[in-house]
C-alpha cells in the first residue's frame, strides 16, 4: 500500500514530496526520483503535535528531528492501524491524565489530614526542643514587628506607661501584682510585663517572657483581680510556650500549603482560608488550656480565680468574628462556664489595696 507524504529530513529545512510504502516491518519513504530516503520501523513511530487534519510522524528517541506528514485521512488510519504508539483516539493520554487527577485528589486529602492532625502534634513535640535563647531571639523579633504595628508614635507620649513621674505609683502597683503571680508560677525566667498606651481591652504574650497589657484593659477592669486574671491567662501562654508553638505550626502549614499547591487563579484564597481555619482550630484548644492555667495560678496566688471570667464577659463579644470556625478563642460563654466550673466561688481579699488600685488605674495618666 502506498500513499503521498511530505518529508523533512531533520538536517535541512528542505520540503520533499515523497511516496510512502507500508512494508511488512515499517514505512519506506521514497523521493520523487525513487531514491529511498528513510525506513522507519512501525514500533518506533511517534505521533507528534500537528493540526487536526495532519498526521505528523517522527522516530521515537531520534536526535535528528526528521518529520513525515500524511494529509490523507484514510492513509493515516492505515498507518495508525500498524503502529502501536500512534494512537489518534488519545486513550493513552486520557489514562495518564486521569492518573494525575486521581493522585492529586488523594494527595490533597492526605495534606488536609496531616494539616489537621499531625502538624499540631509535631509542633507540640518540637516546641520543648527549642532552646530558651532561641525563643528569646524569636520574641525580640516578634516584639519589633508588634511594636511597629501597635505603637502609633503620638508625639510627646511614650508607648510604654509607667515612665512618667505621676505614673511611678502605678508602676509599683503592677509590679506587685505581677510579683505575686510570678512567685506562684515559678517560671524558669523572669517575666516582663509592660503596660502600653492602647485603647483596646487586650493583652498579648510574646514568645519568650514578655507580656503587653493594654491600657484599655485596665480602664475596663473593676478590680485588680480582673487585671491579674488576664495576666495569669497570658502567663499560661508563656508557660506553655504557645507563642513559639504557633510560630512552628504556622511555618508547618505554610510549608504544606504554600509550596506545592494553590498556584492558580483563586487558589491563593482557598489556601489562605484553609490555613486560617486550621490555625484557628489549633488555637481554640490552646486558649482553653491557658484559661485553666490562669485559674490555677490565681488560686495559688490567693486571688479571685473567677475574675478572668467576669473580665472576659466584659470584653468578649465585640471582637468576635461571625463564624465559629474562624474564632481563635472558644466562645466567650463557653469559656466563662469552663472557668466557673474550675474555680469554686470563694471570697478572697483583692490582690491590691484601694490606694494601689487607684494608682494602677492612673498608670498611663502621663
Amino acid at each position, binding site marked *: *500500500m*502506498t*500513499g*503521498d507524504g*511530505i518529508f*523533512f*529530513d*531533520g*538536517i*535541512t*529545512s*528542505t*520540503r520533499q*514530496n515523497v511516496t510512502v510504502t507500508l512494508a511488512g516491518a515499517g514505512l519506506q519513504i521514497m523521493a520523487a526520483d525513487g531514491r529511498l530516503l528513510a525506513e522507519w520501523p512501525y514500533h518506533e513511530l511517534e505521533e*507528534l*503535535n*500537528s*493540526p*487536526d*487534519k*495532519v498526521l*505528523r510522524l517522527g522516530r521515537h528517541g531520534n*536526535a535528528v*528531528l*526528521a*518529520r513525515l506528514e*500524511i*494529509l*490523507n485521512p*484514510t*492513509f493515516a488510519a*492505515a498507518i495508525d492501524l500498524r503502529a502501536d504508539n500512534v494512537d489518534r483516539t488519545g486513550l493513552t493520554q486520557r489514562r495518564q491524565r486521569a492518573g*494525575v*487527577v486521581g493522585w*492529586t*485528589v488523594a494527595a*490533597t486529602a492526605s495534606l488536609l489530614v496531616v494539616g489537621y492532625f499531625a502538624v499540631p502534634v509535631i509542633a507540640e513535640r518540637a516546641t520543648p526542643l527549642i532552646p530558651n535563647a532561641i525563643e528569646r*531571639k*524569636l520574641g525580640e*523579633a516578634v516584639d*519589633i514587628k508588634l511594636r511597629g504595628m501597635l505603637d502609633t508614635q*503620638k*508625639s510627646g507620649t511614650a508607648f510604654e506607661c509607667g515612665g512618667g513621674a505621676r505614673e511611678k505609683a502605678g508602676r509599683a502597683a503592677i509590679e506587685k501584682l505581677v510579683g505575686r503571680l510570678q512567685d506562684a508560677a515559678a517560671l524558669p525566667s523572669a517575666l516582663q510585663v509592660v503596660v502600653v498606651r492602647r485603647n483596646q481591652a487586650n493583652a498579648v504574650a510574646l514568645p519568650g517572657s514578655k507580656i503587653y497589657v493594654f491600657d484599655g484593659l485596665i480602664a475596663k477592669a473593676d478590680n485588680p483581680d480582673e487585671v491579674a486574671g488576664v495576666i495569669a491567662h497570658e502567663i499560661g501562654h508563656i508557660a506553655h510556650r504557645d507563642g513559639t508553638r504557633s510560630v512552628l505550626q504556622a511555618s508547618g502549614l505554610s510549608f504544606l500549603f504554600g*509550596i*506545592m*499547591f*494553590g*498556584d*492558580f*487563579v*483563586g*487558589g491563593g*484564597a*482557598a489556601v489562605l*482560608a484553609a490555613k486560617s*481555619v486550621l490555625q484557628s482550630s489549633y488555637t481554640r484548644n490552646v486558649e482553653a488550656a491557658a484559661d485553666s492555667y490562669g485559674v490555677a495560678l490565681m488560686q495559688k496566688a490567693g486571688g479571685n480565680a473567677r475574675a478572668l471570667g467576669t473580665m472576659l464577659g466584659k470584653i468578649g463579644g465585640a471582637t468576635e468574628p*461571625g*463564624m*465559629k*470556625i474562624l474564632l481563635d478563642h472558644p466562645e466567650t460563654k463557653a469559656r466563662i462556664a469552663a472557668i466557673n466550673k474550675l474555680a469554686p466561688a470563694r471570697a478572697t481579699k483583692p490582690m491590691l489595696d484601694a490606694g494601689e488600685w487607684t494608682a494602677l488605674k492612673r498608670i498611663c495618666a502621663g
Partner: protein
Amino acid sequence: MASSYPSRPMISPDISAAAVPGSVRFLGKRRDYWRLLVRGGALLMVTLGIYRFWLATDVRRFLWSNTEVAGESLEYTGTPFELLIGFLMAIAILIPIYAAIFLAALDLGIVGKLSGMLGFVLLALLGQYASYRARRYRLTRTIFRGLRFHQDGSAWRYAFCALFWWTMTTITLGLAYPWQQSRLERFKMRNTYYGDLAGSFEGSAFRLFLRGLPMWLLVVGPLVLAAGALIETVDWLALANVAQQGGDDVFARLEGASPGFGRAIVFAMLMAGVAVFAFALLYPAFQAMVLRWWTSGLRFGDIEVRSQLRTWHIYRAYFRFLWIAILFSIVVSVAAIPAAMLIGSVGDANSSIGKEILATGILLVGYVIVALGYSTIYGATVKLSLWQLGVESLQLSGLAALDRVTATGGPSSALGEGLADALHVGGY
C-alpha cells in the same frame, strides 16, 4: 493491496486551500480552544493547580500546531512532565532562598531593615532570569520543518539588563519603555536561531516613542496636573506640623493652613479618574501598537516580517471579553442565590460547626469558580485573539531562505519554566 493515497484529498479544504506565499495563517477553531480551557479550568480546581502543567502544554500544542507559516505548521514538543520537573527544580532552588530572606527579616540590625528591599531585588532578578530561560525552553521545543529553534546568551546578563531597564521605565514614568522594549528584544532576538538562521530585531525605539507619546500624555498628563495642583496649594510646612500633632480635626486645620486645599484634593481625584479612564480606553490601542511594532521588527536572516494589525480588531476582542464576562456574572449571580441563603443562616447563635464548614466550602468553591471563570473567558477571548490577530496580520518576505536552513542546537531544560511558574512570571 495496491491502493495509493494522494497527498491532497478533497475533504480537507483547510489544508488544501493553497496558502498565499509569505502569509501566516491560524487554523485553530475558537470552539476547540474554549473546550480545552474550560476542561482545563475544571481540572485545575480539582487538582488544586497541579494540572497547570498539562493545561499549559495543551494550550501551547493548540496554538503552535494551528499556526501555519508558509504552508507548514509549527510543532510543540514539550511535555507536561518536563514542566513538572522544572517546577520541582525551581522549588529546590527557591526554598533556601525564601528561608534566607525570612531569616534576614528576623535580623535585628541593618540586614533586617533592608531585607525587604534586598529580597525584592533578588526575586525580581530571578524572575527575569527565569523568563529568559523559559523562553529558551519554549524555543527549543518549537519545531518547524523538522528543525529546532534555539536560544543562546547569558540569562544572568539578560536579568541584570532587564532589571536596569525596568528601573529606568519606572523612574521615567514609562517614557523609557520603548528603549526598554527594543534593548531587551534586541538581546533576545540576537541570541535566537532557527536552525543556523540567526534572528535579529530591527524595531526602532524612537518610532515607538513618537507613536506612544500622545497616549502617554493622555494618561500621565492628568496625573502630573493633579500632583502640580497639590504642590501648588498645599503649605507643606503646615502639613508637616498638622501631621505631627495628629488629632481628629486634621482636615479642618489643613484647610485653614492652606486655603483651596479641599478644592485641590477634588481636582486631583478628578484628574486621577480621568487618567484611569484614559488608560482603560487606550490600553487595547496601546497593545495593538506595541504588537505591531514588535512583530514588524522581527528578522530571521533575510526573512523580514511586516504586520498589518488593525487596532479595532483588538478592541473587538476586548468587547467580546466584556460581554461574555457580563453574561457569566449574571449566570453566577443567579446560581449563587440558594448558596447565599444557606450562608446567610450561618451567623445564628445555634448554627453548628458542620454547617459552617459546609458554608465555607461553598463560598470557597464559588470564589474559585468565579476567578477561574474570568481567567478562562479572558484566555479564550483576549489572549487567543491577540495570538490569532498577531499571527494573521503578518506578511513575510525573503522566504527563499527557508529552503537552505540546516539544523543546530539541542533541547534545554525546563528549569526556567519552573522558576517562572513558581515566581508567577509566566508567559504563554
